[in-house]
């Protein structure tokens, strides 16, 4: 079980997406998943070993690291990627349910089970709202946990068993900050794409509905 599972999941979702949805999948693949696996993971690999405090007191480094990094950036990033990709499963499940129903009744119930209309449209809209919500939640979490998106090169720690206020140095703070900003930028881009897709679908189907009603009235 690895990121390949997420990649296969997203490829499956791509089939039932709109054009903007496909751009979203491409952005998640190339700029988030690939960057995470190929670059970001290695930066945070030895963050605990390379976290150094100006003291020889055993245990001081451990408690200080735990205090300043309750959940590591890279783990939050991984959680965000997983959570944000999961709502798309709702669409896949709904299409599978439709196809199953057709098989069960042995007749063509839908013109095209993968077409976004009726119940599938509601599922798609819900998945978009969930995706946007989760992205925002994680961005806010990052901001609150780490006091903004900055990573200082020095933090002052005075938790027991550290005997006094001790200087602790974080490894590769600049590189980590660059990738953090990259993560925030791609998150915001994904939020914008989700909101555009939402508005596009709402406008498209409202127009369709209005035209249908108009035609009925004329008849």
């Amino acid at each position: 079980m690895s990121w390949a599972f997420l990649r296969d999941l997203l490829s499956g979702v791509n089939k039932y997406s709109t054009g903007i949805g496909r751009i979203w999948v491409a952005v998640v693949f190339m700029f988030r998943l690939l960057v995470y696996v190929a670059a970001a993971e290695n930066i945070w690999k030895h963050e605990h070993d390379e976290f150094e405090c100006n003291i020889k007191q055993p245990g001081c480094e451990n408690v200080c690291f735990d205090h300043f990094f309750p959940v590591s950036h890279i783990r939050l990033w991984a959680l965000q990627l997983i959570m944000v990709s999961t709502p798309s499963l709702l669409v896949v499940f709904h299409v599978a349910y439709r196809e199953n129903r057709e098989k069960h009744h042995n007749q063509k119930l839908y013109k095209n089970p993968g077409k976004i209309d009726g119940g599938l449209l509601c599922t798609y809209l819900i998945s978009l709202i969930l995706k946007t919500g989760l992205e925002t939640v994680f961005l806010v979490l990052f901001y609150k946990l780490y006091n903004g998106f900055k990573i200082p090169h020095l933090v002052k720690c005075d938790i027991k068993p550290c005997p006094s206020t001790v200087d602790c140095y974080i490894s590769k703070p600049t590189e980590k900050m660059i990738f953090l900003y990259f993560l925030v930028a791609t998150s915001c881009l994904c939020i914008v794409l989700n909101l555009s897709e939402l508005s596009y679908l709402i406008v498209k189907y409202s127009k369709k509905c209005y035209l249908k009603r108009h035609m009925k009235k004329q008849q």
Partner: protein
Amino acid sequence: MDWGALHTILGGVNKHSTSIGKIWLTVLFIFRIMILVVAAERVWGDEQDDFVCNTLQPGCRNVCYDHFFPISHIRLWALQLIFVSTPALLVAMHVAYRRHEKKRQFRKGDQKCEFKDIEEIRKQRFRIEGSLWWTYTGSIFFRLIFEAVFMYAFYFMYDGFRMPRLMKCNAWPCPNTVDCFVSRPTEKTVFTIFMIAVSSICILLNVAELCYLLTKFFLRRSKKAGNSKQQPNHENKEETKQNEMNELISDSCQNTVIGFTS
């Protein structure tokens, strides 16, 4: 999930590329991505652990390393490769859109549609003309820009392409100007120069492909203008048919020779 996924995505684009585009893709995968994964990552693997400063002051090494390497070479290359590969996705999306339109025409039972079944549409190779030409040319243009920007960023951040053996650091909390030693500087310099050289080759290939596409575009335009002025001549029709056949034959030969399976 790794570079293999990128290979799958870009392999699909390969079918609709020009011959120079196929060479570019081969160079990208063999001389850049493969070298990055198989060799370069190992060379830079122990970069912070083996970055040693001539002081026992805790924190001095961390701060000096961060000062001299704001972003590691290996990460910069990974980002460069991702950004440079992304424009090809535009072409893949455009091709997918065209295929979707053709499938829709076929399903509607359009008389103009020349395909006998959906499989033919799926396997069809689109020629680079019309709006696809603009997308393709745009993607090459963006590739060039990204390559140039990253090469400049590299040069600017590291003051050239050489990795020095010794760096002098006096950032706080280092007590004075301290000597810091980089691990494997020569090997890193060799790989840096190699990656820069291959980047330059890729830039040249992109420029050549751009010139080729522009030349083809202007030739086609002048041919069209010439044909519309002349009377429809039976001999001209024969010549143009023969030209098209020759183009198709040479394209299919190049497909088999540069065998990059999609």
